[in-house]
């Protein structure tokens, strides 16, 4: 009988130790935001600490335009037409950003930097620039004036600057996903600043990950719906993320490259769901600026891209392809639900 009791005590402990996948978790600051990664699998914590964190920090130094002497800073300080040799990964992300600029017909434009500098969103220099200042700098915004030849990049116009803030976190999501998969991780959830996130596989209990889509009106983390998903990237752009009010007008950080002002969108937020993080990041900004109708027209032309839009008039509109995975939770908050 004594052996039975020994068996009774040891068995659950054995099952727990032998069957539960190892959980790894890191939270750190990089890429001008907070990075959170949770992964399940062998050596998950070691992989996150020893390989993932240094890799993200490396990406940060390759993609930032905030640090003097960084590759992008060298490009942005260069004289017109001068070729600047940059690290291959910086050039890769620059090329990718130009590709998405082309696909969105310049609605997403990484050369918005001279205008973004005037506004200073997310910095201590946040201010409302004058129309004259914006008008003066607007001709500098044109992705077609960036020339890339192998690892050399140049601008065809004096005063141009590039900012990879609209794609960098999405690209980093792709790197996180690739590295974890290569290391044999089959279940993970990661977020880069809350706006770019992704999941690998399903949860360790075999169920789908449940991602809430934030209610733009909520100060807390309330959500208007839940997306059940696996192996996907998600990016949300909203007018509530960084904004200020001046003279009774609300100015948010999603700038329209055509006007230089905060995009006058019919949307409060745009969430893009697709297999690629960089694409999700760039497209969420673009479809926010496009507004409801153009956003759906655009995404229908892009393979594998799903949309969840929250409009100014409190409608939640979800792509047909995502509808079966989406549970609407906004009724009590005054939202209505549409599938398109």
């Amino acid at each position, binding site marked *: 009988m004594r052996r039975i009791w020994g068996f009774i005590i040891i068995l659950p402990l054995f099952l727990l130790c032998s069957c539960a996948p190892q959980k790894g978790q890191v939270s750190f600051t990089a890429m001008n935001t907070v990075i959170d990664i949770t992964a399940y699998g062998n050596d998950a914590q070691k992989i996150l600490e020893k390989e993932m964190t240094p890799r993200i920090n490396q990406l940060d130094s390759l993609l930032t335009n905030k640090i003097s002497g960084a590759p992008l800073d060298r490009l942005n300080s260069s004289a017109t037409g001068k070729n600047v040799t940059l690290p291959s990964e910086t050039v890769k992300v620059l090329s990718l950003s130009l590709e998405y600029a082309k696909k969105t017909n310049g609605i997403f434009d990484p050369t918005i930097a001279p205008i973004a500098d005037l506004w200073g969103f997310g910095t*201590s220099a946040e201010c409302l620039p004058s129309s004259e200042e914006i008008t003066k700098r607007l001709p500098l915004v044109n992705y077609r004036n960036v020339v890339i030849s192998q690892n050399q990049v140049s601008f065809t116009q004096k005063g141009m600057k590039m900012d990879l803030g609209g794609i960098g976190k999405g690209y980093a999501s792709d790197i996180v996903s690739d590295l974890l998969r290569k290391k044999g991780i089959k279940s993970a959830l990661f977020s880069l600043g809350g706006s770019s996130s992704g999941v690998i596989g399903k949860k360790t209990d075999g169920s789908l990950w449940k*991602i809430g889509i934030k209610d733009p009106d909520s100060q807390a983390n309330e959500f208007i719906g839940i997306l059940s998903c696996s192996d996907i990237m998600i990016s949300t752009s909203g007018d509530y993320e960084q904004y200020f009010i001046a003279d009774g007008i609300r100015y948010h950080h999603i700038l329209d490259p055509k006007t230089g002002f905060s995009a006058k969108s019919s949307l409060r937020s745009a969430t893009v769901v697709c297999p690629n993080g960089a694409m999700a990041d760039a497209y969420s900004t673009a479809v926010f600026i496009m507004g409801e109708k153009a956003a759906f027209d655009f995404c229908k032309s892009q393979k594998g891209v799903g949309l969840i839009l929250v409009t100014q008039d409190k409608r939640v509109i979800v792509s047909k392809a995502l509808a079966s995975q989406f549970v609407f939770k906004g009724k009590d908050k005054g939202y209505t639900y549409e599938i398109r």
Partner: protein
Amino acid sequence: MKFAKGDYVIVAIVLIAACALWLSFPVKKGQNGVATILQNGKIIRQIQLKEINKPETIRLGGTYHNTIIVEKGRIRYQSADCPDKICVHTGWISYVGQSAACLPNKTIIRITGNLDGVDFVSGS
């Protein structure tokens, strides 16, 4: 040693209980409203916000200096000597999923807990 009939019943019950425990283990969420303070990716403090009875001040060194104040149910950066002070301007945070950060000093305050049935909130 011979197993009695009752022993088999006990073993069966334990097996079922162990399996149930194992199945529930991965989805077990943290307790509601725990503030975690991190610096350079390392956890400095974890605080059950609902259990704070009198305000507490926490000071963090590093490249810059942060002063964090915690009250019942909420926490914030009270002051900092970093260049942008975005951490201080973030104000109080109190809801699960919210965070505040001083990027120049590589510090983060994050509130973890049950997110009402979801694993993450996109756009938060």
